[in-house]
């Protein structure tokens, strides 16, 4: 049997095959022996105790489990942990330090871009990938980029505004602190 679910321990007992993987998670190198079938979302949540990554649908549709893999958004509920071996993973906990907020986080609060909060981490990470790639998106760009993340509370309008708000702020900072 495996002991991998509750605690990441150096070795699993019994006859379950495991593989040692090393992942950079939010800038920190972490190693674990994992069953090949362990999903990345579960490694992040139960193994690394980073519960801001949520699992919603198990079929890559809802995007609550979205994390950044080398900067690109992926659905961690349908990716195996072993596939992330040697890669950089960013979760919501890695968006900003404990006492500060990323402009995307600020934007979501300021524009009321969340209600129950369950989809929010995935939304924000998808938004980050968009703004990293396209710092000045149109509303249509934002809507298209977010189409892989479902929200049942907000109706998206305020999420779109939140991302545009963050884009404005990030560009303002890049221009020397003036908000456009």
């Amino acid at each position: 049997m495996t002991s991998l679910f509750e605690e990441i321990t150096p070795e699993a007992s019994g006859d379950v095959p495991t593989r040692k993987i090393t992942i950079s998670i939010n800038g920190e190198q972490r190693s674990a022996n994992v069953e090949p079938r362990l999903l990345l979302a579960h490694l992040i949540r139960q193994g690394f105790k980073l519960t801001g990554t949520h699992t919603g649908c198990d079929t890559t549709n809802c995007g609550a489990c979205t994390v950044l893999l080398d900067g690109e958004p992926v659905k961690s509920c349908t990716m195996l942990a072993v596939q992330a071996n040697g890669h950089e993973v960013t979760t919501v906990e890695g968006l900003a330090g404990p006492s500060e907020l990323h402009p995307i986080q600020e934007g979501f609060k300021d524009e009321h871009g969340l209600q129950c909060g369950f989809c929010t981490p995935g939304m924000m990470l998808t938004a980050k990938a968009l703004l990293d790639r396209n710092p000045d998106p149109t509303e249509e760009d934002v809507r298209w980029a977010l189409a892989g993340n479902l929200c049942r509370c907000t109706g998206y309008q305020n999420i779109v505004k939140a991302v545009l708000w963050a884009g404005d702020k990030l560009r303002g900072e890049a221009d020397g602190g003036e908000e456009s």
Partner: protein
Amino acid sequence: MVLDELKIGGLGSSRRRVEDDRFIRGKGNYVDDIVLPGMLHMEILRSPVAHARIKKIDTTRAWDMPGVRLVLTGEMMAARNLAWMPTLSYDTQAVLATDKVRFQGQEVACVVADDPYIAKDAIEAIDVEYEVLPAIVSPEQALAPEAPLIRDDKANQQDNVIFDWEVGDKAGTDAAFARADVVSKIEMHYPRSHPSPIETCGSIADFDRATEKLTVYMTSQAPHIIRAAVALVAELPEHMIRIVSPDIGGGFGNKVPVYPGYVASILASILLERPVKWIEDKTSNLMSTGFGRDVYLQGEMALRADGKILAVRMHTDSDHGAFFSDAQPSKFKIGLMHSTFACYDIPTAHLTAKGVYTNKAPGGVAYRCSFRVTEAMYFQERMVQAAADDLGMDQAEFRRRNFVRDDDFPHRTAFGFLTDSGQYGKCLDVGLEAIGYEDFLKEKEEAAKRGKLLGIGISTMTEPLGAGNSREYDILGIKMFDSAELRVHMTGKAILRTGAKTQGQGHETTWGQIVAHELGIPAEDVLVEEGDTDTAPFGMGTYASRSTPVAGAAVSMVARKIRAKARKLAAHLLEASEEDIEWELGRFHLRGDPSRGVTIQECAMAAYSNLPDGLEPGLENVAYYDPPNLTWPFACYIATVEVDPGTGVWDVLRVVAVDDCGVRINPMIVEGQIMGGLTEAYAMANMQFITFDEEGNCIGGNYMDYLLPTAWETPGFELHEVVTPCPHHPIGAKGIGECATVGGPAAFVNAVMDALKGHDVRNIDMPLLPDRVYKAMTERTDVSGAPPLRME
């Protein structure tokens, strides 16, 4: 200087949300985030077929798997008298099947193991032998003379009928129809839908043998109801049961009922004396937990030639699935369906309703709605459009002619509800102005000449939100009041707890605003806690838009009790009699000398440090609030669409929403609620439904089949407001969370039907999928969406 209420985050402030600070950091605390020492994991084996007799369950292979701690079957539950549980609608529901399975996805067995992967493996190792029986997936099939009996477990059940119910005046309605110049008719199916919060249901049961205390962390919109249910079902002492609803990832009615998984996890924890976590996957959630709608609506309207509605006749056949476990007030079998036409002045009406069992998942919940009012208002507004068309009248003018007038309140509806306020005509005018009604009609005419199909749909409605009053509203006999407890600490900071449970509505933010309004204590000085039955006062939870109307009112009332005591303290501090003291926001002062006063914070300190003789120390209280009536928000939703004649695809051009929910506590949050509701309305009109094939297979059991709108499809919304304060609510507020979901669908459907005018089509069942619209246009026929789904 008098305090500026907006500056302390009082009523009307679009205060940013307190709860967001943890959610945007990924620091929410949802059930699946909770890890207890020694916790085990439970998975449920579900029936692959819709209707079958269970011949044999063999769990040997599962028991033998390493890491498996417990395999539960119906037989083991039955030995503890837990194989069946009561529902919220006085029926029974199988926890784990013993005799038959009655819907696809029904709970058959559970495995508890060291981790969920092992539990899932072990589920696969349970062998069940089924004798498959014919499946029933519609009321028509259920009521056929030779239909198989679904509930043969019930001694006196001879057929598949759950109830026959009626309300209104049959004789009066018949007489009015006899006088009618025109009779309009419509028949529709409001399809089965699922609330589908992104977070599924789940629980962690933690029974501590040493203390005999059972703690259950769970996704419940109504934790106190769950505590009562556990006490009754599991026969555990109520004071030794603690239900905790932590952060909830959306509810929309799905998280009101008691589900077998909760019960099984509780029993497993008691047997194993370890915490047991059960987290549903999405397919289980969609296939087995509380659905919404699934009602067949038939209506007739008696009309005078000048456009006056004389009477309405309505019949509903509702499909409740295998167990009648609707979550609704016990007095009304088809929820508040009879709130239909409440905004129109109609002399008489009659409703008959039949409910049936089918081989589908149970649990008709108020999916973002106040107990079937979504169906009621959809029926109403589709009927209104059909009638206006039959009379050849403008649809806006027809509504205006029949609205209850502003000076006609309180108004008793034909079905007996008492509406108390509204400016219906004004709301409609604001909506028409915003959309540019006359211009659009011209544009539509012009476009038609170029072969383009434009349409405009209107939906106007008032709906009953905020059950109860306790005279008429109860669940399982428990009256639908709610509560708030406020403790003001000596420094003037406070903690507030209510019997409601926020799931995204922002109570942690808005309740503080009500306290700020009543006491002048800044909202940021009020900590709000909900969801723990050991600490929160008893309440009936959050659904049916009842939080602001009931718990929110209790917040006002408890703050007023605090203010009354603070007045005594102020009198003591100012060495005056209470009668000589006046209240301004946050401060008492001497009548005639506003310069001599004490703040609420100074009164709070005195409550702990400087008391007059005979006054009880402390500054805390609790209020239980039983509202005198429901609240009646009003709304006007208008959508414009363009239908592609070549494909049946329709695009939304604009959506205008005018909501009158009385006084807005936090306008930002109110608008957020409206936009969320409009999106669910759009979803139901456009794509979102669950159907079944002839064998009872659920079509829509995952997000690849059950389509939800994304940011890409969802239209933009233009919001407007009219404010008519609720005359009986302490701060004049009304419910708002569900208005747009309730009233919105008809606006979209009416718009598409308006675009198809001239195609001899009266109705296309939701969702208006392109193939349905195309068929209606080209074959000039109504299109039904009722199951069974036929693969053609």
